[in-house]
């Protein structure tokens, strides 16, 4: 039997949770679907205190924000399906969900949605070098899950690749977990993330190798990483022969940026654009976070890699706009909220780290106005009239 929901939100990270809460609070029936066994996305891995505005949860640790959001979602009447994944989106807003993937009660359920919010986040980029597939080489996100969620050390001595905020923060947290970070390696001539995060790990004695990369991870007798060769790079980021240095390490963690997860947006034929600052191909959206396809909204990293604060705010806009389109909020209420949130988003995107994202976000809104204008009905809606309910 077909289940019906006003809003189906895909992905229960900060963007999806915020969207669900806003839509639910406004009175919409909301189903939130997530692949993982716990909602919260990356929030429960974040044991550090967040940046941002003190009016909006900054200074609070990420996992505490996650718990607050889960409480709010419950209060807003949001139904959450965990261990569940969207395996298809079909014409006329049908969402096909494999529910309870990890249990023996696995079933495939079709949900008829009125609005869909895609908040699927992003995935880690990989850097390839000799030995990159041997045990002990992993994404920084994986190492962070191990230490902060599963309380297992990935190894004793870690080489971190990448000096963006993820590389810097996870290095710090690896040390808090009792690992030694033998080196942080960065190919660029300057540190990518916040200087205060870099300063924390410098104070703790971690050497930072600028203009360096990993050339090879060498396995020991057990087949796992035992040595890591790093080398200086030239201006084309190619290793310079003769500058190699050997480090004793059993773990390599890669923090080389993230790429938006856009599979569902593409499946729905949402107009996309390539944007290097936001991490790759992303769906265009307007000020309501609505894509080129009417009723499909996006929020958070899946429409441009940023951070949790911006994901939360974008999620709120998507939830409010979907609720408004369904008549749960007046245009006046919707506009008032959106104006306030965009103001906060602009503030979060200021300063040397934010200004490029602020400019690119405006470019994306502009590109939407030029290429899309207004959202249109699903392309398939007209042709596939005989689809069976």
């Amino acid at each position: 039997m077909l289940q019906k929901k006003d809003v189906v939100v895909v992905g229960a990270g900060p963007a999806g949770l915020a969207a669900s809460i806003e839509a639910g609070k406004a009175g919409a029936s909301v189903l939130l679907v997530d692949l993982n066994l716990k909602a919260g996305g990356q929030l429960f891995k974040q044991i550090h205190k967040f940046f941002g505005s003190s009016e909006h949860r900054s200074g609070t640790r990420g996992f505490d924000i996650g718990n607050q959001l889960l409480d709010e979602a419950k209060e807003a009447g949001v139904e959450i399906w965990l261990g569940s994944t969207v395996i298809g989106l079909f014409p006329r807003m049908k969402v096909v969900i494999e529910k309870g993937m990890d249990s023996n009660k696995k079933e495939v359920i079709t949900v008829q949605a009125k609005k869909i919010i895609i908040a699927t986040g992003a995935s880690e980029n990989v850097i390839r070098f000799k030995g990159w597939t041997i045990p002990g080489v992993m994404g920084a996100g994986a190492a962070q899950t191990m230490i902060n969620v599963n309380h297992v050390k990935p190894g004793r001595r870690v080489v971190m690749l990448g000096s963006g905020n993820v590389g810097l923060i996870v290095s710090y947290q690896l040390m808090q977990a009792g690992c030694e970070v033998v080196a942080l390696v960065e190919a660029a001539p300057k540190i990518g993330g916040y200087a205060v995060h870099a300063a924390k790990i410098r104070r703790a004695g971690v050497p930072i190798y600028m203009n360096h990369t990993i050339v090879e991870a060498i396995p020991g007798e057990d087949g796992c990483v035992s040595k890591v060769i790093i080398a200086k790079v030239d201006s084309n980021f190619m290793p310079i022969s003769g500058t190699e240095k050997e480090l004793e390490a059993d773990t390599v963690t890669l923090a080389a940026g993230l790429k938006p997860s856009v599979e569902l947006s593409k499946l729905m034929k949402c107009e996309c654009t390539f944007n290097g600052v936001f991490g790759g191909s992303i769906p265009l959206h307007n000020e309501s976070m609505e894509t080129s396809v009417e009723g499909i909204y996006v929020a958070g990293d899946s429409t441009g890699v940023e951070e949790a604060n911006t994901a939360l705010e974008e999620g709120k806009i998507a939830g409010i706009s979907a609720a408004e389109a369904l008549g749960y909020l007046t245009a006046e209420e919707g506009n008032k909220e959106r104006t306030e949130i965009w103001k906060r988003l602009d503030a979060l995107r200021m300063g040397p780290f934010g200004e490029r994202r602020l400019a690119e976000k405006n470019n994306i809104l502009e590109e939407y106005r030029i290429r899309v204008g207004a959202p249109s009905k699903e392309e398939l809606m007209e042709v596939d009239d005989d689809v069976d309910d």
Partner: protein
Amino acid sequence: MSMINTGFLEYDELAEMQKMPTDERYAKGPVAVIECVQEIPCNPCEAACKLGAIKIGEPITNLPILDGDKCIGCGICVAKCSGLAIFIVNKVYSATTATIAFPYEYSPTPDVGLVVEAVNRRGKMICDGKVVKVMNPLSFDHTPVVTIEIPKEYADEVRSMRRG
């Protein structure tokens, strides 16, 4: 600036980019030293100080500015700073020693009386330090603030201790 290349700044570089307490203020006792020189969107320190000694205002990417006359060196902002970039420096702890209070989120939290290795901004050992105070109330949310006593001449250099 060198910080984006190396991850740390020396005191004189910091002083060029940010208002540091004056010598007169240091002479009056403990005071917050804010080592936050990039315009990032963050302002919990402003709300943390109930005396109104830290000003950021709008937009929230402004650098924090400390009013040394209002600051009493209590250390609450040290625990509230998400960037762990605030220290309390007391250059008149005794005739020959100063104290540095810093956030320390590693395990184990040191006990008062313990002699530790005091390190500078690049993690290099500078001198011995004696733990004279550890603040870790619930409101600090698991960011203990450790105060160590060190020879006065290293007050602008020492910023943490070697992990145990």
